[in-house]
């Protein structure tokens, strides 16, 4: 029986992951990378009692819901500003500068101030919004900015109103770029929320990470970090699948 290229690719990926995890386990058990690098089996002990599992499920729910809210707000703001920039070219340069300035804010320095101003519950969401907003805005606005010139000429020769050509030509053309921005923004929202939780949020994976670090609970620290990474990767790959569909439909 012969393999298709897709089957071969999956098989290679599986073998690669298996090898990676085996090496990790080996390095952890032998202590080759130091005491703070546990084996995978040791990290798994972070979930071995109902109490520990309860901690992680509550933290995951808190981080997940904050990230979802941050992603939704970041995407909504990015969409609104990109649309305003596209239909009001005179405002475009100003909105671009504003977006770049927001992106340039160092979250680490800004976090403690946010705790005082916005409160510990809201700070993770604010930092999540700041992290998610810019990639979505940047990708969407560049997709709207560069429609194929021939399409634009076609609209011009047909005397089409700017709004109609925007809806029928520019907007669909920008869809792949927009979804590309979403897939970069979603992991950004998760990482922004976790960072915000470090500054004193009442719950969340970021709180577990900081608490585990301070109490030298190495397997629990790794478990929380890996859950965060897994959440970010899951969001990225889910939106990558949507991006592939979008490219297949809206791009050449």
């Amino acid at each position, binding site marked *: 029986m012969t393999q298709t290229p897709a089957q071969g690719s999956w098989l290679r990926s599986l073998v690669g992951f298996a090898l990676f995890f085996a090496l990790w386990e080996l390095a952890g058990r032998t202590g080759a990378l130091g005491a703070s690098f546990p084996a995978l089996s040791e990290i798994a002990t972070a979930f071995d009692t109902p109490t520990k599992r309860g901690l992680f499920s509550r933290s995951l729910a808190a981080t997940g819901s904050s990230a979802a809210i941050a992603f939704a707000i970041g995407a909504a703001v990015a969409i609104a500003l990109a649309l305003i920039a596209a239909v009001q070219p005179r405002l475009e340069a100003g909105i671009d500068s504003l977006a770049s300035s927001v992106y340039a804010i160092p979250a680490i320095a800004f976090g403690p101030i946010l705790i005082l101003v916005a409160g510990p519950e809201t700070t993770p969401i604010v930092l999540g919004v700041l992290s998610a907003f810019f990639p979505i805005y940047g990708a969407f606005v560049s997709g709207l900015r560069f429609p*194929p*010139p*021939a*399409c634009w*000429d*076609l*609209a*011009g*020769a*047909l*005397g*089409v*109103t700017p709004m*109609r*050509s925007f809806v*029928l*030509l520019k907007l*669909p*053309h920008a869809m792949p770029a927009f979804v590309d921005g979403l897939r970069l923004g979603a992991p950004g929202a998760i990482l922004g929320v976790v960072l915000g939780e470090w500054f004193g949020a009442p719950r969340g994976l970021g709180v577990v990470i900081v608490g585990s670090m301070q109490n030298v609970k190495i397997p629990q620290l790794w478990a929380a970090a890996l859950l965060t990474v897994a959440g970010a990767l899951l969001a990225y790959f889910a939106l990558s699948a949507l991006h592939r569909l979008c490219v297949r*439909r*809206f*791009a*050449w």
Partner: protein
Amino acid sequence: MRLPHTAGCRETETAPIGAALAVQDISKSFRIDRGQSLLALHGINFTATAGEFFAVVGPSGCGKSTLLRIIAGLESSDTGHVTIAGRTPAETTVDHQLGVAFQDHALLPWLSVADNIALPYRLAGLDPDRARVAALARLVGLADFVAARPRQLSGGMRQRVSIARAMVLKPVLLLLDEPFGALDLVTRRTLNLEMQKIWSALGTTAMLITHSVDEAVQFGNRVFVMAARPGRFFAEFPVPLPRPRDRAMMASALFIEIVQRIAQALDEATAASTGISSAS
């Protein structure tokens, strides 16, 4: 005055729907650097009668496409004016009376062939005439592909969709900017023959920009030769050949003679543009 749209598409209709075109004293320059400007077109004058098909050939950079864009209302001229059935290009485009096909077919990948052909209806805010869309798909030989997406078509098929789309609103003036330029020779020849049939069926006024003298003679009632720097009309040739101009016609002595005369004029126009003689 709004010119009427006619519902449906009769493939055998022969009554011209085209508009007379008048181009008077058109000049156009482009700013290139620090107050310097390049005179792209100078003193372009010509008229075309309703239902006429004329072609424009010329060396690269002589302003052929700029002239087409001015006629289409996509660029403004510095001097002179264009009238299409007595109206400005802007008035004509507002009434969606122009059809344009470019070398880049500009099909929308997210729409089917039928929806791409019907796109001008949607852009114009009109309800698509599905019967006319289907008739045009038949006319360009794509009746079996109306549900296909552009990426599933060959280059020649995509260009046929683009031509059908250009004609769907029954334009009074059809502007073709090297629509066959990116195609291989065999596809191009086949499409040339089909395009003649399509134009004969619709009877619209048409302007073809091309680099191919053969193609210009095959299509045009007249062929204009342009020279560059500045872009201007260098010579005009009537083409007194009967239609359809099929492959047998293209092998005739008269066709070849006209092609040779125009090719010679094109060489002279190129030499006048660059100062380099083709004989040297």
